[in-house]
């Protein structure tokens, strides 16, 4: 993309470009907001502070007010906590399980590999939003249920990615040597394979985080994600959708919050130093 036009700087031996640094700062800012949200709220999230609903942006109410006249800035800050928190927990579970299973399948091979691959590929051919709908209908949408649902939906993808990388490493000579030494599977995947695939796996982790944020927002938007009084960014768009015909900030701001996070993660991964991003590294 616009790489030539962007100045490069050096830090810790890698060169970073401006787009990547800005994206990283946006992600850092949302992370801090998610951690410290309860301490920086200008108003309590449930309090009605505006006489009017769908109020415009103005001093004191920087993001306007929502459909009940509550402060939108506070609600978006608190929403960051749920969107970032739930997605991060889900992506950690999904990538950890997927990558471990993928490495085990690659190292072991045989029927275990075929069965796992066939089964997880089948799970992969259920459209993610549909999967979410069905499972949420079945187990409800408490926060732990949502985290597990999102994690399960994205395990097959993580598995496929890690297995493809691990299969390549598995053919290397040092793997044969380790096998001949009689090392255990735990040692093989932890000390021989993982260090060799960790960088692309981390990049994949970021992409999967974006997918999960999008799916969580979509489910909440449909009213099947986080339930009131809790509200993540998708739920905030849903409850304020009535303000759309008059372009109320209450419906635009949470949408922009989602976009700023997902686009930043995408841009950061796109602009990572080649050494980290390269799959063959």
């Amino acid at each position, binding site marked *: 993309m616009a790489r030539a036009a962007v100045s490069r700087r050096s830090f810790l031996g890698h060169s970073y470009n401006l787009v990547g640094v800005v994206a990283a700062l946006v992600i850092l800012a949302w992370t801090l907001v998610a951690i410290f949200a309860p301490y920086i709220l200008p108003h309590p999230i449930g309090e009605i502070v505006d006489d009017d609903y769908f109020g415009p942006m103005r001093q004191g109410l920087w993001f306007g007010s929502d459909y009940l006249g509550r402060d939108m800035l506070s609600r978006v800050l608190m929403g960051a906590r749920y969107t970032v928190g739930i997605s991060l927990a889900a992506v950690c579970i999904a990538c950890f399980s997927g990558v471990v299973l993928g490495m085990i399948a690659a190292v072991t091979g045989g029927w275990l590999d075929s069965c796992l691959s066939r089964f997880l590929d089948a799970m992969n051919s259920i*459209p993610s*939003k549909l999967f979410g709908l069905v499972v949420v209908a*079945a187990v409800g949408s408490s926060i732990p249920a949502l985290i597990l649902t999102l994690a399960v939906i994205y395990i097959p993808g993580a598995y496929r990615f890690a297995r493809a990388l691990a299969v390549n490493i598995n053919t290397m000579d040092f793997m044969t040597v380790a096998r001949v030494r009689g090392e255990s599977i735990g040692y093989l995947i932890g000390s021989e394979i993982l260090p060799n695939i960790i960088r692309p796996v981390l990049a994949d982790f970021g992409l999967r985080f974006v997918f999960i944020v999008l799916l969580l*927002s979509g489910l909440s938007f449909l009213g*099947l994600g986080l339930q009131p009084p809790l509200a993540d960014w998708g739920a905030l*768009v849903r409850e304020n959708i009535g303000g759309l*015909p008059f372009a109320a900030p209450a*419906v635009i701001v949470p949408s922009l919050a989602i976009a700023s996070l997902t*686009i930043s993660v995408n841009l950061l991964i796109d602009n990572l130093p080649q050494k980290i991003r390269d799959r063959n590294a």
Partner: protein
Amino acid sequence: MTSGVLNLVLKRLAIAAVTLLIVLFAVFFATSMLPGDTASILLGQAATPEAVAGLREAMHLNDPAILRFLRWLLGLLHGDLGTSYANDMPVAALIGGRFVNTMKLAGITTLLSVPLALTLGITAAMLRGSPYDRTVTILSIGIISVPEFMVATLAVLLFAVYLKWLPALSSVNEAHSLTDLVRIYAMPVITLTFVISAQMIRMTRAAVIETLSTPYVEMALLKGASRGRMVLRHALPNALGPIVNAVALSLSYLVGGVIIVETIFNYPGIAKLMVDAVATRDLPLIQSCAMIFCLGYLALITTADIIAVISNPRLR
């Protein structure tokens, strides 16, 4: 077509069949985990325990899950989708008209987005690195990175609130004239076209760029072929397989897209039916809708794979 290709295609179809079976089982299993006893929900609070037990027996709810699954599967093969819990109508009757509506939406979107995306994708690849290419790339990455409902809200803001060309959130059941029809379909189709095209542009562009970097295209350049001839005669015929593959894959995003779009625009299609069924916990309806979506998705993915096999001469 040689027997090698035929074998590969048959193998792919067999895999699709096995996958379908696993998917159906997963859908059935997830929905039978729904909390609450179906029989007591159906009979309401005033039901006697004997009546509940009787209905459980009649609905075969006491049988093991695997037996109920096989019975459901057998019913499907006979074209029997079951009866909706919520309003006691056959599921097939509920789905019929809605299905046609959704297919109309998907069909119009496909007709619009495929030519649009192919033109943009191929021209962007030809003018790689130009401001035009950068604009197309950045816009398509932007659309891919945001949720579908945001594309929909932005489209409403642009076309209904600022330009005032179309009604904002039209809830529609009856169309009286052609203008009405266009107004009904405009917003959902615009939103879906954006979502689908963004994927398709990216994949098409990547496929053409890969072909343009091959030695025979360089050879064509060296022998003095014009730029247009180089792309149209030398690169495109070879990129055709990957492009059709990209088209089929992108169309599978329609499945996720319609769920959001039908809900936000209150469009009477099968996805809206399913979201409502989830809200009312209407089991047979959820199962049938989910099955239709999975079937469509699987068909598109399998088509994409088969096209990739057929178009690759090295696999023949």
